């Protein structure tokens, strides 16, 4: 069996904290033993609330942040511990798409320079030349060659995100890490970008790690989902499985909190409290203070990730004994009425 495109094992990152003002020194475990695989052509959704460590995980994989421990393998080759120059060869295979379409493009460079930079850095001679390749990429993401000489500030947020995607695609990478790529965009534009990513994946077979706090967007684009809470993975499963039968109480809470586009939808029971401070994470299972099913064991002992069915792992002591989950709000699962469906079809024409 060939190795997966990306294999992450026991990834851990501790940040030393304490600058001038905090006095004491301490550390925050931002990512705590995260493991997963990602195959070529596959999209893995990494979801969690802000501050749970999902973005750090993405940067650890790219080694933009040095991991404290753990292993990252790209196509069977270990990346951790590689010297910077040895890392460069791998960089063309892994790219990053950012959340903020404004700060991720250098304001003093033209679109051509931005998209052409990866080609220059890696000394790639393309048949049509750099200009030709940039034009090609611009067309691929739904912009045009006429945009090459412009500066980022002349574009809207959605267009900028397309430029960012074109830059990521320039080197034909095997893996793209998308860090909340649509959360800064308007709803109508979000869908454009999600569709674009889907289309590009189908065309290029690139593997996507899709980091997001928006479960429905993840559901739309990912084949598998990993749920993160305070630095740890709490559940991973194929998307359909996860949305049909989530096993971790936190996953359920997340799904329950999705607002349904329906008037007077019945409110779901709510999760209490908020994400605890990573400076002082709760003992045992990090989720226990907010968990309606927590027991003494949850306080004392951190549950290990166990596979309950092929590809479905969950880190909960009580996963087997939880009551059944009522399912997503019907408003989210119901197909649009025929009239609406017909009208919506016009948008795809």
């Amino acid at each position: 069996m060939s190795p997966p495109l990306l294999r992450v094992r026991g990834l851990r990152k501790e940040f030393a904290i304490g600058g001038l003002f905090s006095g004491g020194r301490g550390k925050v475990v931002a990512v705590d033993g995260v493991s997963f695989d990602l195959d070529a052509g596959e999209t893995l959704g990494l979801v969690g609330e802000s501050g749970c460590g999902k973005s750090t995980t993405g940067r650890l994989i790219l080694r933009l942040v040095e991991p404290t421990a753990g292993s990252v393998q790209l196509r069977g080759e270990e990346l951790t511990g590689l010297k910077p120059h040895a890392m460069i060869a791998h960089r063309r295979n892994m790219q990053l798409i950012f959340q903020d379409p404004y700060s991720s493009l250098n304001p003093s460079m033209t679109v051509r320079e931005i998209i052409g930079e990866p080609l220059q850095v890696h000394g790639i001679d393309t048949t049509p030349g750099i200009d030709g390749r940039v034009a090609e990429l611009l067309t691929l993401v739904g912009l045009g060659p006429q945009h090459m000489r412009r500066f980022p500030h002349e574009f809207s947020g959605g267009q900028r995100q397309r430029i960012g995607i074109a830059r990521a695609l320039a080197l034909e990478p095997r893996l793209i890490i998308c860090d909340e790529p649509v959360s800064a965009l308007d709803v109508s534009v979000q869908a454009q970008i999600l569709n674009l990513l889907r289309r590009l994946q189908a065309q290029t077979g690139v593997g996507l790690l899709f980091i997001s706090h928006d479960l429905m967007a993840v559901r739309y684009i990912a084949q598998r989902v990993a749920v993160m809470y305070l630095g740890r993975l709490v559940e991973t499963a194929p998307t359909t499985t996860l949305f049909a039968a989530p096993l971790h109480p936190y996953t359920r809470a997340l799904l329950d909190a999705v607002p349904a586009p329906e008037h007077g939808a019945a409110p779901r029971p709510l999760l209490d409290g908020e994400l605890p401070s990573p400076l002082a994470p709760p003992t045992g299972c990090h989720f226990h203070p907010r968990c309606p099913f927590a027991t003494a064991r949850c306080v004392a002992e951190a549950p290990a990730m166990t596979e309950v069915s092929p590809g479905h792992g969950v880190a909960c002591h009580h996963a087997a004994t939880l009551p059944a989950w009522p399912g997503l709000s019907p408003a989210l699962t119901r197909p649009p009425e025929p009239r609406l469906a017909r009208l919506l079809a016009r948008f795809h024409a």
Partner: protein
Amino acid sequence: MATALTAGTAQAPAADGRLRRVLRRLQRQPTSLVAGAVILAFIIIALAAPWVAPQDPLASSFLAVRKPPSAAHWLGTDEVGRDVFSRLVWGARTSMLAGLIPVLVALSISLPLGLLSGYAGGWIDMVLMRVVDAMLAIPFLIIAIALAAFLGPDIWNAMLAIGIAALPIFVRLARAAAMSVRAEDYVEATRSLGSSPLRIAVRHILPNMLPPLLVQTSVMAASAIIAEASLSFLGLGQQPPAPSWGSMLNAAQRHMAAAPWMAIAPGCAIFLLVISLNVLGDGLRDALDPKGR
């Protein structure tokens, strides 16, 4: 400042999109326009001094020493009978240069240092910042006086000294600018591409450090002009008989009570130029502010 701006356009075509926006915004501020016009007028006067000045700024007349303003001498004559107005016109050259050269000196040294310190960090940053702290603790003028005295009294030395004395502030600013640019996503983006540190520094960080420094440049030019005047006032700047506004003030001080016109004219010239630079600096700051009130 206006010269610095046009120079900026020529050197950094990559930034011209933003620069044009900034210029457009500047044009909408009436105060900046007036300030720009004043500065421009001074530049023109300085460049056209031989044609603007009615008399030879060095020609002294033993018979007309310290004469009050008259039709022959619009701003009177000085301590050795030279025409104050003509000296004022020629002195504009020195003062404009005194605003420009120290800024160029400070920028050309502090940009690489600030970049190094702010981007590389680590012990280099630590050592550099201690030296900068030490220099900051010595008053600006004292460093300038000591350096100017060491280099010898000469206008170019004075400008060099002022530029060096301004270094710590500039290094700090450049460092802060480098650090804030370093935190931008596009730097991470280019890092993830595998760009070399040199490329990141030169291609991505350096061009984006410039806008915040640009504001400081105009303020610095203003202080440099005052510093030149102060050094000349202490006899360490422009050497006689060549005129500079500061040396004119120096000469005037002894005759304050009897010939106040000797001091009032150069003082007002300095004030006008410096306040214009400061106004333009404020305008630039506003124009560069992304929120753009």
